[in-house]
């Protein structure tokens, strides 16, 4: 990072991300607000389209008094524009969205991967391996370290996939700390390596090593279909768990999250209390995870790391919705120093206690007219 102002900001955010983990993970409102406003001032000046967008909405560093007033960019803008807060020639990496429902793919341009990578491990550990934060073993006291099996392409096979990169970082960092046992990817060239995956599961069973099965929901469906075809049921070692992410849109087979969790329990003996959904997107550095392992026995909700915030807003007014009501998710992610930190997602959600839940389209919302929403039409027509 060549820009001294940016380097200073990155250093502050990185320091936060690298602080020793504790289960409470205090949100530190003042610290977040101060850093978010500093970052807004920086991005307002360095990312010209964003600066003009904000100015036209009457939001400038002079008028914004709190992180809640920082204008958010819709995720669709990442499909149209390279939203950079650095010079184009300094880019070191570009992550791209999977592009399952539109011809264009969203892009996140980065001049450093440091923040992206630094945010991954603490969030994962807090929500998938909270025992490490508590200083206790994962699974039974005598169990060897947990093993990660990843149902996603490797970073080499999908260099522009932020998800693959995230898994690569997890294997590298947790492996270097000795926090995990033999682990690896089980997708090759987009194909599930079922036999290898199964061998890895059976080996873990043999050694009583807890498994952390990670991957896209779609890949899990494939693996579970294979198990069903073979009539197999595995009772994975105590302490095993699942992290699933992503949806099914544009894929061959869709099923509800409840159905997926039912199949995971049926075929792998993983109860839903040990299944964590991760909510993330290419346009963001940080991820959000279900609370079920971190705070067992409490209401399932998604929790943010301290350097990110979620607002639920009324899309018609931009005002926050009352707690419990449906709104659009707006995410403020301090990890996004290289692009724009405030992103308006295409998802609806609802606040749940100190977290939130993601909702699909409004329940029971049939189309009110016969006019085709063009997004649907464009998806059906394929690339123009």
């Amino acid at each position, binding site marked *: 990072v060549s820009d001294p102002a940016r380097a200073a900001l990155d250093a502050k955010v990185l320091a936060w991300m690298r602080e020793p983990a504790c289960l409470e993970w205090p949100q530190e409102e003042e610290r977040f607000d101060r850093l978010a406003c500093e970052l807004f001032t920086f991005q307002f000046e360095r990312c*010209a*389209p*964003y*600066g*003009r*967008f904000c100015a*036209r*909405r009457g939001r400038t560093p002079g008028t914004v008094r709190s992180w809640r007033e920082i204008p958010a*960019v*819709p*995720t*669709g*803008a990442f499909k*149209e*524009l390279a939203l950079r807060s650095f010079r184009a020639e300094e880019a070191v990496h570009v992550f791209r969205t999977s592009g399952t429902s539109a011809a264009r793919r969203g892009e996140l341009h980065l001049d450093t991967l440091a923040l992206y990578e630094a945010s991954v491990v603490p969030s994962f550990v807090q929500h998938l391996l909270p025992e490490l934060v508590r200083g206790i073993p994962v699974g039974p006291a005598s169990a060897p370290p947990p093993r990660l099996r990843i149902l996603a392409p490797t970073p080499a096979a999908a260099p522009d996939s932020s998800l693959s990169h995230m898994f690569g970082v997890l294997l590298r960092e947790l492996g270097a700390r000795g926090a995990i046992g033999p682990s690896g990817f089980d997708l090759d060239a987009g194909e599930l390596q079922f036999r290898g995956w199964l061998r890895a599961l059976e080996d873990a069973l043999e050694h009583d090593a807890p498994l952390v099965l990670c991957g896209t929901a779609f890949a899990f469906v494939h693996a579970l279909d294979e198990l069903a075809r073979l009539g197999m049921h595995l009772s994975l070692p105590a302490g095993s768990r699942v992290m699933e992410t992503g949806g099914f849109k544009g894929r061959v087979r869709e099923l509800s999250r409840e159905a997926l969790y039912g199949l995971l329990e049926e075929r792998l003996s993983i109860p839903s209390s040990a299944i964590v959904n991760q909510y993330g997107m290419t346009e963001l550095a940080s991820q959000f995870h279900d609370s079920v392992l971190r705070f067992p026995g409490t209401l399932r909700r998604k929790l943010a790391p301290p350097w990110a915030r979620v607002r639920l807003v*009324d*899309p*018609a*007014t*931009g005002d926050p919705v009352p707690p419990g009501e*449906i*709104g*659009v998710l707006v995410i403020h992610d301090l990890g996004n120093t290289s692009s724009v930190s405030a992103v*308006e997602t*295409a998802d*609806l959600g609802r606040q749940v206690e100190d977290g939130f839940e993601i909702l699909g*389209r*409004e329940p*029971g*919302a*049939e*189309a*009110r*007219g*016969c*006019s*085709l*929403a*063009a*997004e*649907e*039409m*464009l998806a*059906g*027509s394929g690339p*123009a």
Partner: protein
Amino acid sequence: LSASSAREVSDALGRVRGCGKTLRARPRSETLCVLAQVLDRWRDPTSKTRQSLDHMLPEATGFSREVVRAGLAHALGGWTDEALRALVQRELGGGAGALDRGAVLATGFGSTSVLLAGALPTPTLLAILAPLVVGSPVLARTSSSDPVTARLVAASIAEVDPELAACVEIVEFAVDDFAAMEAFLSAECVVASGSDATLSAVARRVRPPRRFVGYGHRVSVAVLGSEALAPPSLLETCARLVFDVGLWDQLGCLSPLAVYVVAAEPPQIEGLAMGMASALAQAEVKLPRGRTPTSASAAFARARAEAEMRSAAGQDVDVYGLPTDPWCVVREDSAQFREAPLYRFVRIHPVADLAALPGALAGLAPHLAAVAIDGFGANSPKAAELAASLGASRICAPGRMQAPPLGWHHDGQGVLTPLCRFSDVESD
């Protein structure tokens, strides 16, 4: 309203089938006479039917009261006794019964199930009346977006002729109630409106010799030549287009989602965009936008913000209106079709000349319903031919898009002919 069970749906179908014998025994002229009186009631703003619609439809569907009133008055104006008879004459010939079209016998099916969709009332009215015209009794499933209209259609028939009204039953059940749907789809003819996915799913379950008639989701656009943008015409053009946009909040397949401006200078296009914005703002007084679901508001706000971002990035794009306005106009820099979030969101695209129009609309062609055309002077027939060649089933003037004639070839099909079996009776 309580959901009908599979048994209730099956029983209802059995009852209408039974009534069908009486219906087919009637002279068609008698049925037409009753249906013409029903249409009279629907056209009369003081009738009990219209008052019920005025009262119940806004709450049930989310449309504003003003839109419901204006939309019904506009759409039903031409749905007269004469229009109904002309439709029958055109599609079935003049015969009053057995030997239609001289030597062709048109027979309605033993029963017709009508799977209604959406919240617009006039398609629901026609969908229930059309099978009756051909002598087929009707079992209709209401749309969850409009639980009101189908029952009012049945009630308005009952006011005129209880015997004919017995040939119509309305049921309500969840689309994922497989058993109820199976019973519903066991009619001899099934008419369904909805998304491509819905139609495919229904079509798979209606096997020959039963008849399936599908009406898919569609889009409409306006295409303007420079004559429509000249100062004397511009205000009128904008007012007419905004009327088409405002009625039913762009949710009908005949609402223009985009305006293509052919061979116009940039100031003319900007003038149109400003005029449309101004007219949409004014329309809020007389035709306010209705209720907007959160997901739709979100899509609307997102599309607007994305256009703002492109403009801020230096693209030749302008966004008119404030983020909190219940309408939006975006002047685009190219003919490329973009996401249309509906609910009064209009994009204006430049097109170099008429020859470039097919290319501009090519992506829309499989989904095209109506094209409003204006401002081409002597080239108007050519513009209309181009639109027709792209698949538009209706070409009309701005301001008329929401008033399709009773005989409009919806999706390019006849109104009555898909609901009949034809038998050719040779003279020797």
